[in-house]
């Protein structure tokens, strides 16, 4: 007489129909939480307002320079000195020939620092600039 192991008859498969949905949700989660190249802004600034403003369509071309309330200058991820801007911006221009430099300057700063930066940008031949402003309503 053969002995057979007793097995339960219930199926033990994991339902896989919802798998794509779960993956979808995960994908969504990551899409939402990921911001491309997050930059920590280390300076405090409030943008001025203007009416005749333009949009910058191509976000890939933009490179930012921040000038804070206390005159601190930030390029990329770190605070920079004025005389280093030329070198940094030049290397940016080499890798991206038609770079647009967006100046995010605090509205209470002096023109002096803005002009100094503009001079450095001219020396680095980054000539397309954009004064970042908010829309005045």
């Amino acid at each position, binding site marked *: 007489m053969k002995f057979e192991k007793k097995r339960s*008859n219930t199926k033990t498969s994991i339902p896989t129909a*919802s798998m794509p949905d779960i993956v979808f949700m995960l994908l969504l989660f990551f899409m939402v939480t990921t911001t491309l190249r997050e930059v920590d802004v280390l300076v405090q600034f409030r943008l001025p307002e203007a009416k005749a403003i333009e949009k910058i369509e191509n976000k890939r071309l933009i490179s930012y320079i921040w000038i804070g309330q206390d005159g601190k200058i930030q390029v990329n991820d770190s605070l920079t000195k004025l005389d280093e801007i030329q070198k940094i911006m030049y290397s940016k221009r080499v890798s991206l020939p038609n770079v647009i430099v967006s100046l995010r300057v605090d509205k*209470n700063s002096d*023109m002096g620092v803005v002009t100094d930066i503009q001079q450095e940008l001219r020396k680095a031949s980054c000539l397309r*600039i*954009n004064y970042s402003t908010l829309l005045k309503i």
Partner: protein
Amino acid sequence: MIQIKKKKKPDPEIPSSSMADISFLLLLFFMVSTVIDVDTGIGLTLPEFIPPEQQTTVPISKDRLAAVLINENGDVLLNNEIIAIPQISKTLIPRIESKIDLPDTKKLVVSVKTDRKTNYNLYIQALDQVKEAYFSVREQYSQSKYGKRLVDLNDKSEEMKEIREKIPITISIAEPEAIKK
């Protein structure tokens, strides 16, 4: 031997038909609540850097020059007349309009000059006024000539090209003078 058949239990399953709906709902929620921030601002092209010893001065006739001077107190001087910042646009519009049909070498050049101590906000306001003057002249031109609004024109169309040619935005940013002590 009599086999007693066990009653077959239904398969335990999580209802998955609504999963797609839930994920879509989530997708929708995030699409609606996400703000894609668009960078806006006043665009400008800086002049090329030329070392001081190679610089040459080109005389510009007074007729085509509109010099906007802003000092550290926020006073604005437009062609030697003291005006307020909101008036810049109105003053410039007739001057730009009068030069629409003139050749390229006779168009208006707006020069914006500031002190080193001038407030940045004032400078932006003045620049904004200049830009606004140009934009409203362009708008006028487009409406009277093509019967279309400027925003409806294609960026690469012939009309836009002509407008750019007829009314070029020439803003010269002069270097500020060091403050006299």
